[in-house]
């Protein structure tokens, strides 16, 4: 294998100097980082400094903006709302999707194909298109201005994609395992609970990670469903904050950075899960 490696890399080196590759890649790293860095710098300046020297490093860094935001109870309320919605949505998604995916992967019944196609039709009704009619239904049920309204809608629209992903994973679990379990007298539920789920943990955490990111960043659903500012989630609150304090760019930058911190932390912890969840579809058999 070592010879293969050397053989391949020498081919690469002949055609595209590695230096050149790294140059281009570094350029893109820069492009990714510049906006983020600008924001962080801006947050560490005073309002006046931001207006007069917006893109030099902040020396000395001024922490008042961060202090001010962290001292605003509304920030913590928004954080809490986002957290609650995210945890509830993720639990719901993992729960409902694993149950349904199991049925489609491992059980037979009449009309199974039809039911499955029906559910995957949901992929064609993305949230952005359906939000208007969904708002009407939520209003009819009386769940507007209620975090549960946001939660159930988010779960409902993440069903199709995640059932697909989980079904793929479940199908990969060897049939022999299931047969053996049945022979031993396990019911389908037992098999599901005691054997399949523990085995499918990587898949479940991938789905969970995806659901968490999607829910945390969701703007449209809370924007439409929620009026009361005590129920705002973080993206909604960020948008409103920017609208209100738009001219105080340093403060806005601080708010935005703070609201991005949880997402970043989460990303660093769960990158592998997120990646595997997303690529589950691309890796065909």
């Amino acid at each position: 294998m070592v010879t293969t490696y050397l053989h391949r890399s020498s081919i690469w080196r002949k055609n595209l100097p590695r230096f050149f590759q790294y140059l281009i890649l570094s350029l893109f790293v820069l492009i990714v980082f510049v906006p983020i860095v600008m924001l962080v710098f801006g947050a560490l300046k005073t309002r006046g400094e931001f207006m007069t020297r917006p893109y030099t490093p902040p020396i000395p860094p001024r922490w008042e903006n961060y202090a001010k935001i962290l001292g605003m109870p509304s920030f913590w309320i928004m954080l809490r709302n986002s957290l609650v919605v995210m945890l509830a949505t993720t639990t719901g998604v993992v729960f409902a999707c694993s149950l349904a995916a199991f049925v489609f992967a491992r059980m037979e019944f009449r009309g199974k194909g039809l039911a499955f196609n029906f559910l995957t039709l949901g992929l064609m009704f993305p949230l952005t298109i359906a939000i208007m009619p969904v708002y009407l239904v939520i209003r009819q049920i009386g769940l507007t201005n209620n975090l549960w309204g946001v939660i159930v809608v988010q779960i409902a629209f993440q069903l199709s994609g995640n059932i697909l992903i989980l079904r793929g994973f479940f199908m990969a679990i060897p049939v022999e395992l299931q047969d053996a379990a049945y022979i031993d007298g396990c019911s389908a539920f037992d098999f599901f609970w005691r054997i399949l789920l523990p085995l499918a943990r990587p898949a479940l955490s991938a789905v969970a990670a995806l659901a968490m990111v999607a829910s945390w960043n969701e703007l449209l659903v809370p924007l439409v469903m929620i009026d009361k500012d005590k129920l705002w989630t973080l993206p909604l609150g960020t948008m409103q904050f920017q609208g209100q304090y738009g001219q105080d760019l340093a403060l806005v930058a601080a708010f935005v950075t703070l609201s991005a911190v949880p997402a970043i932390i989460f990303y660093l912890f769960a990158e592998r899960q997120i990646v595997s969840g997303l690529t589950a579809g691309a890796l065909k058999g």
Partner: protein
Amino acid sequence: MRKSILFLSLLVALSLVLAACGPTPAAPTVAPPPTEAPTKAAPPTEAPTKAPEKVTITWWHIQTAEDQKALWQKLADDYMTAHPNVTIEITVMENEAFKAKMTTVMQSGNPPDLFQSWGGGVMNEYAKAGMLKDITADLDKDGWRDTFSPGALGVYSFQEKNYGVPRDMGMVGFWYNKDLFAKAGIQEPPKTWTELLDDVKKLKDAGITPIAVGGKDKWPGAFWWEYLAVRIGGKAAFDAAYSRTGAFTDAPFVDAGKKLQELVALEPFQDGFLGATWGDEATLMGNSKAAMDLMGQWAPGTFADNSVDKKGLGDKAGWFPFPTVEGGAGDPADALGGGNGFVVGKNAPPEAVDFLKFISSVDSQREQAKIGLSVPVVKGAEDALTDPLLKIVQQGAAAAKYFQLYYDQAMPPAVGSVVNDSVQGLFAGTLTPEQAAQAVEDSAQQEIK
């Protein structure tokens, strides 16, 4: 895996802590101060000798500037001290966010007790939908009505019933930077439209941005078209169009568009003006980056709040009225303007009206005038205006024989938004004056019945 478990448990712990600190999501509404419930049950006529029940008043205003926000808070605090059973919950919103919020609030049928209003057609819609409280009787009591200048009060009435009171009435005019004008060699502010265009050229030659405008918000630009229509067509033109005996495609409105095109052709605005908000516009003026701004009486306050040093134009500021248009039928003293006031929501307790009285008292108006928050509408408070420019504005507004409320407040909201959109098209050069006028006319035909 272990990392994820650690993270997950951290998350759960964090959410438990936060959940313990606040209301649960399962409650249909996040628990407001516990006094809210009894408020709605309180009968409207309460014998004054009864021990006062705890009452909460929700108050929405749009003064985000620090000193103005503080004044409202102080007035609320003063009232609460004098009336310990009353709690006033203030929500401060930015202009555009407030307008957006009002649409959804009206839909849900649950307006706040006291909220910002510009009167006119928009307020009329709310009244028609039964969202506002009729305070005609309250105004008649104890001569409250007579403390207001009648013209201003009239803006907040609909079909002979009053739904709110004004706190501020002024006119739109040019706020300009005297230093920048001097730099460009302009001795005096322009009196005619042609002179204005000349001055724009002089400013450009001197390398100064002549005009600041917030194209993204649309309404700052609409002022230009509306004022041109006022100067060219006068009261007669608008009255005819609005009463449907004429139309918005009549000559004055098309001509207004043509004149505006002349101005736009000179490229007098700041870079990227189509994407600029009112906030951006005010920041430019406040930091002396642009020479003039066609804006209402709230301008100096916002200029200052948005400037780097929080001082704004200070004594560099000047004011001149909208120039006359040669051959126009309008009177030079005609004014486009409007004001601000508060209207009362349908569910408001009687204490809300009482509080409204409090903030419209002469003393309160004087405090507002002092910081340039309001151009007073209560008699006796005008002399508290410290800003000489605002005094000029106030006198101009009071003296105008034809006072036109901004179109997007005077007419139903749908027509107003078409006006704003169409004028933006004129600024961007995507609509001809005829097309813009036609769009407004079409909308008026549909909405004004």
